[in-house]
């Protein structure tokens, strides 16, 4: 009897010390996460993909017992790509609906606007698409708006990476810009030009054109650039606008010109563009000159983890995951990891937990840099190929992998590499 009592005592002691001091009972039964992105208009697919990525994450988490026993409930709203709407949505999600965590956001401008109000809302926001470097370098690092994090690569990807890739191409001597006429377009081009000129002072900028948001006819811009015969064009209009622009460039015969070598479509690797570009890539209209990158590529890295994510996404939704889906998926898991680590929904504790966190994304480990809350990870660039045995759509192939450490700017001085 004494022996049995002793065993029971040891067992109870072990249960006591192994049980977290604060368990699921101290968290609400339902943890609410609120997302927003663009789900209307020509860029609606980005928000739609965010919803799909979030659905997978929420389903997986709930099927495996939730976050410390608490179920996760998600609400997603259309930001309409307007800062005023996104701000109103954020306030509604937190104040009225009771969100414990916010994620999403497609635009640089909205990212900056929300970063400013998150301390008042006393919640964490993880940006999954908005790319301006001003968010991590100025808003978070310099101004200390520390409630906001970013799970996607910033404009270093759009500007510095292509410069690092094409600096070694001797056939590129003249460059031109076709910029989206807002922060993202200007920032990307500035980084590209400065980085490239640092390595190749001989390179000449021969033309610049820009197009406002919701632009449809790019032929005047394309003609203006073609008149200057650049070897490389860096283009930032994205989504439907990017697709129209490339179709119009084909029609103008740009890709047939012997002097033209590379079109770098900054977010050309997004799924909506890949789907739209497929007939033209298949027909060889780009002559291998169309390059691009993204904020996650479904076909890189070739790891079981990434393959499993892509397979699950395809099985469930019949499409390939875009970067907005993968980044939202990862952001929700980062939040889960932070809650599990702190066993709390206290914003300050969660911020501490996220700073320096290493999180397993479908494409591998991402490290959240503590100083500026920027997720650091590598995304390659490549040129468009079509291979039916790999994918029914065109995709970025012949990938060039440059580790993020070589092209990310770093605090405190954020110099070019």
């Amino acid at each position: 009897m004494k022996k049995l009592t002793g065993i029971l005592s040891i067992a109870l002691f072990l249960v006591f010390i192994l049980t977290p001091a604060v368990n699921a009972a101290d968290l609400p039964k339902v943890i609410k996460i609120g997302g927003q992105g663009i789900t209307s208009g020509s860029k609606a697919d980005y928000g739609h993909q965010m919803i799909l990525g979030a659905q997978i994450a929420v389903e997986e988490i709930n099927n495996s017992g939730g976050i410390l026993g608490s179920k996760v409930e998600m609400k997603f709203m259309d930001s309409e790509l307007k800062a005023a709407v996104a701000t109103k949505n954020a306030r509604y999600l937190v104040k009225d609906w009771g969100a414990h965590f916010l994620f999403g956001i497609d635009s640089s401008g909205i990212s900056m606007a929300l970063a400013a109000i998150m301390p008042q809302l006393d919640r964490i926001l993880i940006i999954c698409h908005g790319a301006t470097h001003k968010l991590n370098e100025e808003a978070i690092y310099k101004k200390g708006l520390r409630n906001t994090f970013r799970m996607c690569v910033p404009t270093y990807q759009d500007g510095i990476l292509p410069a690092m890739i094409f600096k070694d191409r001797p056939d590129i001597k003249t460059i031109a810009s076709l910029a989206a006429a807002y922060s993202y377009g200007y920032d990307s081009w500035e980084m590209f030009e400065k980085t490239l000129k640092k390595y190749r002072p001989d390179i000449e900028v021969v033309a610049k054109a820009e197009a406002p948001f919701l632009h449809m006819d790019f032929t005047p811009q394309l003609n203006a650039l073609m008149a200057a015969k650049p070897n490389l064009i860096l283009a930032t209009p994205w989504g439907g606008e990017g697709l129209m622009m490339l179709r119009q460039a084909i029609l103008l015969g740009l890709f047939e010109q012997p002097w033209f070598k590379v079109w770098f479509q900054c977010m050309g690797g997004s799924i909506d563009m890949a789907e739209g570009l497929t007939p033209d890539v298949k027909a060889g209209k780009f002559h291998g000159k169309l390059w691009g990158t993204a904020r996650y590529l479904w076909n890189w890295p070739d790891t079981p983890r990434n393959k499993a994510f892509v397979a699950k996404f395809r099985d469930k939704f019949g499409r390939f995951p875009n970067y907005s889906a993968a980044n939202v998926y990862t952001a929700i898991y980062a939040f889960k990891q932070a809650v599990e680590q702190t066993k709390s929904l206290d914003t300050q504790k969660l911020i501490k937990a996220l700073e320096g966190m290493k999180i397993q994304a479908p494409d591998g480990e991402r490290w959240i840099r503590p100083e500026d809350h920027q997720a650091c990870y590598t995304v390659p660039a490549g040129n468009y190929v079509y291979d039916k045995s790999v994918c029914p759509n065109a995709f970025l192939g012949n990938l060039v992998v440059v580790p993020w450490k070589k092209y990310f700017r770093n605090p405190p001085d954020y110099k070019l590499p």
Partner: protein
Amino acid sequence: MDNFIFQALNGLSSAMFLWLVAAGLTVAFGVCGILNIAHGSLYMMGAYFAFTSFQILGLNFWLSIVFALIGVGIIGFLMERFFLRRIYAQPIEFQLILTFAFILVFDNLTKMIWGTMLIIPTMPSLFQGTIPIVGRPFPIYNLFIIGAGIGVAVGLWLIMERTWWGKKLRAAASEREMANAIGINIPALFTAAFVFAALLAAIGGALSTPIRVCDSGVGGAVIIPAFVVTVIGGLGSLKGAFVGALIIGVISSLCTLYIPFIELFILYLIMAVVLIIRPQGLFGGER
């Protein structure tokens, strides 16, 4: 000089796209007095119908345009007959609210039917390729658009000026009560005029598909410049809409080449200048 000519030609093709949208907007306002801000949605539906028939049903390019015309014509008829007709006597705010509601309905309808994926069909083989103009490749399709725009302008002029139906439309537009008094069936005429305006939107949408993405927000994107064009030309004036489209298309295009920093707001600058000098628009008051 070669660059100037080439860029002006590009501006002309941009202008024709603007004109095709602005023409329908002008007919709806000029005849029915409807400021239809959902006109861009009719353009969008034309594009979706053309895409569906060309890319999915496999009809040829010309039949896909006919398909788009039929589809949008039916939508236009239903809009006018069951909704717009009820608010002709109401203040213009009612028109704006009702037609704005149509934008939301059509945007969501297209998302439900066609999804959020970007749609751009292949270029019909007839229009693939370029022809050299001043030593540079100019797309055959853009030349076709210039021809189509001019063709629509001539056709409209003939209909309005040389047909009995056109005369009735002009009569109803300038003096509705008098036209009614002499036996013109105004409700039927308005329905026909609105459907006619919808058909013009459908032509614009259908012709846009090979070079412009079809998506659920395209209606909103096309309507703003089209409104600017109609304001510059004078609300309700077809001649004004044509000239306004030419001015905006060609000047914007040339600014892109020579003074790119001004290109982003040249549209509104021209409108502001025209409104200061001639508040009724270039051809305002003329029908």
